[in-house]
């Protein structure tokens, strides 16, 4: 099998998988990073969102051959700094219910805030509307984002 090198959460890794394997399954099944979730497999629900070279991407829709050589951050990588304002505000407002989509929500927001620390409402809507939540935590996600943006001013 082909061997691919990539950086995951600031560590160099080598994986031996078929070149069409989606990054999602490499992270979950090969590297054991199960914080990145499978929801739809077609880039619709956003549960599998990770950062590739700093940008939010759907890991279910990116083959390992296209991720090779790049730097990937997963929720486990982001959580190496639990003081991230996103985590603090997610805890304070108790955003999670079942929690399954939350890594995707958080990764999507983290990429946005990195690029635009003071995003407009439209920018927030664009970044967050592609991440589905069946428990309906959107209302609290909005409050949490408002709090982060307010405190970051």
């Amino acid at each position, binding site marked *: *099998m082909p061997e691919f090198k990539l950086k995951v959460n600031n560590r160099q890794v080598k994986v031996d*998988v*078929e070149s069409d*394997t*989606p990054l999602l*399954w490499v992270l*979950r*099944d*090969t590297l*054991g*990073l*199960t*914080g*990145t*979730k*499978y*929801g*739809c*497999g*077609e880039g*619709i*629900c956003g*549960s599998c969102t990770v950062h590739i070279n700093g940008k939010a991407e759907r890991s279910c829709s990116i083959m390992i051959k296209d991720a090779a050589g790049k730097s990937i951050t*997963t*929720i*486990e990588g982001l*959580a190496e700094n*639990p003081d991230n304002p996103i*985590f603090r505000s*997610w*805890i304070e407002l*108790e*955003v*999670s*219910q*079942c*929690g*399954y*989509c*939350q*890594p995707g929500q*958080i990764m999507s927001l983290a990429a946005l805030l990195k690029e635009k620390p003071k995003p407009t409402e439209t920018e927030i*809507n664009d970044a*967050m*509307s*592609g*991440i*589905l*939540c*069946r*428990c*309906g*935590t*959107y*209302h*609290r*996600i*909005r409050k949490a984002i408002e709090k982060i943006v307010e405190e970051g001013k």
Partner: protein
Amino acid sequence: MKKYTRREFVKVVGISGSGLFLAAYVPAHGFLTKPGDEPKIFAPSVYLKIDSNGIVTITVHRSEMGQGVQTSLPMMVAEELECRWEDIRIEQADGDPRFGHQSTGGSQSIRRTFEPFRIAGATAKEMLLSAAAIKWGIEIKDCKAENGFVFNKLNDKKISYGELVEEAAKLPVPANVKLKDPKDYKIIGKRVHRLDTKPKIYGAAKFGIDVVLPGMLYASVSRCPTIGGKVKTFNGDKAKEIKGVIDVVEIPQGVAVIADTTWNSFKGKNALSIEWDFGPNVDIDTDAIRKNMVLHLEEDGSEIENRGNLNFDAPDLITIDAIYEVPFLAHAPLEPMNCIATVKNGKAELWAPSQNPQGARTEVAKALGFKEEDVVIHVTLIGGAFGRRLISDWAVEAALISKATGKSIKLTWTREDDMKHSTFRPASMHKVKGSVDKSGKLVNFYHHVIAESITAQRFNRNIPVKDADIGEGTRRLAYQFPNLKITGTIVPTHVPVSWYRSVYNTQNPFVVESFIDELAYEAKRDPFEFRRDLLPEDSRLRNVLIEAANKSNWFSKLPEGKGRGIACFEGYGSFCAEVIEVSVIQTNEIIIEKVTAVIDCGTVINPDTVEAQLEGAIVFALTAALKGEITIRDGGVVEKNYDDYQLLTYSETPVIECHIISNFEKVGGVGEVGIGACAPALCNAIFAASGKRVHKLPVKLI
């Protein structure tokens, strides 16, 4: 004194475990010792252990699927035990009859545990107080429990719970312990942070799909696209050529591909060549099901309720009628169905995101031909359930694949599998007819509900319509209609149906509360006042309705194109009213501006969780009302993913304002009560904004 080993202890509680409540499981002495130098453990109930380090472990036998049971159940124990909240640890219970009723559904978790979990805490506290009193040679009345310590009131000395467990365990378990006066609650009713939040947001929490066993293989199953169809013949050669595919096996549900990764199992599945026997339902489609229901519309239906004397021919009445309709719906939780199974040497061990682990155990045992005691079901965190995980089809599949291969396997359904092979919220049609008189009073109310009965289909039972599930949400209404008749017709559809967050309360209240709005309009009455005047003066439903009107500024003027709708619902021991404000743009686009919800669920355990459940129920109900529709064609489900079965998104979600009525009434359910009023409040708002009455869901304005 006899010291129980862990195994013996389990046996002891197992033997006494025939009743439903905690008291039935209390052993004569609550002591057990683990092998070696482990801490001593005091276990006065099957739900509670305290060790000599003072760690309080609470066994939660309800599944955590987002509703917060892993926090709220411990809160009830901690309240009475007077322990420190930071000393609490959680264990999720396996599926076992010794825990009593264990299925997480019907908004029952808190309602069924409020007594036994408080009693567990109070019993342990009582025994710890006695142990301290004996140690100090004083009377119990001179001891006080607080923050994980017993204090000697005579000299202010204190001793920790951990230091008392060995003595406490020797004492007989007291009966009839006294519970706190609600006014003295320190934890119950407070906003307590959830214990499961951090692992969930850090990506460390393990849902079913995240469980990994050593040497585990990955499986996926190809199932017949038609309902009730099966495999005729298959060829797995092409699948086996795919790198990583290890085996292909047939099970009654379809053909399973076993591989070294989830992805390779999916690839193998797509490479299978299967000839299907499409079975008896190949001609079923949504139109045919609908036409069959339409045939029943003109019939009277079997009586469910009859009060007064319905007479549409009386003079001076304004009488209207309408037909309402809702489609099949899928639960579509974000975590697709999955299960991990090891079946070896006549024993089965499963890791299952199940709402119903006892049921899963029974079904898996039956499918494997095992005794139930040879099947262990570990319950994992659940990434959304909404009723889908009360059904254990996926657990049975995983067990059968593991048995066939002799390996530990993780079965993962694709999203398409999950959508097409779900068990669905039944579709239904409704005929309503009602009259108001010239003074604006409601005189007649008739409702005929036509739907498949879940209970009848799943348990193959012939249930009298009078008592059937299809009457939920229209039976025993609080409204004081002078003349009322509710009837029903159970219609088999052959589409597999199951319980879905609030079940028939997603459809009957939509009809009842929409039609009351229509009647209020005919009576030229304000829809809030019209409802209020039909409800008994002292009713809690009336109270939440009035509060919802107040909090939403019901009578304030709205500009052209905007409107407010109101509706109320009673169920699960709780009461809820909602006011929804919408804009309807000329292109028929609907923007939901705001939802104001008022709930009275009696005694509140964690207000933050109550609000979260209400917010979630509203989004769930809005999703169904605006977007939800499962279509049947050629005997199978058309929808396949979240692109054709859409969910409400972040930007579409309105501002949601929740208000809790504070009281110490009997504890009520909160997971589902927010659903019933939502679709009708939305549709009534659409009418107020646009003059267009919605009779069919999902909403499509033309």
